């Protein structure tokens, strides 16, 4: 946790009513990446849930509300692109889905975007880049008050 358990935005602490209303779904099968992402989000005081494959993520999405999804691509059971297509086409959710992958095989990025993902982050997660994503999609004025 940082001083107040809040996210720093441009060097300023955000009021808890903003960081408290954010909940992120992390879909990732690698335990080290799960731990790292959880460590960073905990440090920012951001609520989150971790699922180790796409099927578990779909279950979670039907039970709980999330504001953003961090999605690994290659996972057992159900991969990231299939999960994203299901979220867009069947669950009809417009939630930002950020792909996370190590060095991509050729064409992977295109497959991610085609499946309905919003943006692309390279693993291992860079704290600054993740912060920019959260600010862009969840905290910037354009998204304030958005569902």
């Amino acid at each position, binding site marked *: 946790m940082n001083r107040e358990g809040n996210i720093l935005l441009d060097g300023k602490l955000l009021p808890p009513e903003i960081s408290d209303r954010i909940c992120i779904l992390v879909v990732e099968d690698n*335990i*080290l990446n799960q731990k*790292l992402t959880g460590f960073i989000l905990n440090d920012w005081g951001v609520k989150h849930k971790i699922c180790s494959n796409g099927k578990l993520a779909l279950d979670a999405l039907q039970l709980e509300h999330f504001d953003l999804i961090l999605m690994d691509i290659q996972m057992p059971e159900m991969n990231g692109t299939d999960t994203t297509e299901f979220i867009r086409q069947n669950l009809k959710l417009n939630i930002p889905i950020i792909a996370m992958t190590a060095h991509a*095989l050729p064409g992977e990025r295109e497959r991610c975007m085609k499946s309905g993902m919003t943006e692309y982050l390279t693993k291992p997660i860079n704290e600054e880049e993740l912060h920019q994503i959260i600010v862009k999609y969840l905290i910037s004025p354009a998204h304030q008050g958005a569902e």
Partner: protein
Amino acid sequence: MAFNGNGLEKVTSLDYLKELSKGNSGFVQEMIRIFLTENPKELTELATAIHNKDFTAIRQVAHRMQSSLPFVGVNKVIEQDVMEIERLGENRCDLPQILHLFSKVKAVCERAQAELR
């Protein structure tokens, strides 16, 4: 340049983990503990996949392994080899080359495990 107890150049570096941890040594130790648990399992899974000529499993395990390597700095030594194993697995070809690359990856990972224990 850092060296291990045998005078060999170290294959691991904790610089990245330490930077991420912001001084939380418990987090660094937890990540090392997980690496030491997961990495031997991944090597065994990859060996089994190669033995069974299971290209899908070769690709999947190589990909998973690739994600773990940067946390202890071993990616600088064998990342290209693991990526190549994943690519060959994807293309379902050249098992002898996969086996050759795996020998190197396994040796380096075992050195990394010894350094981290």
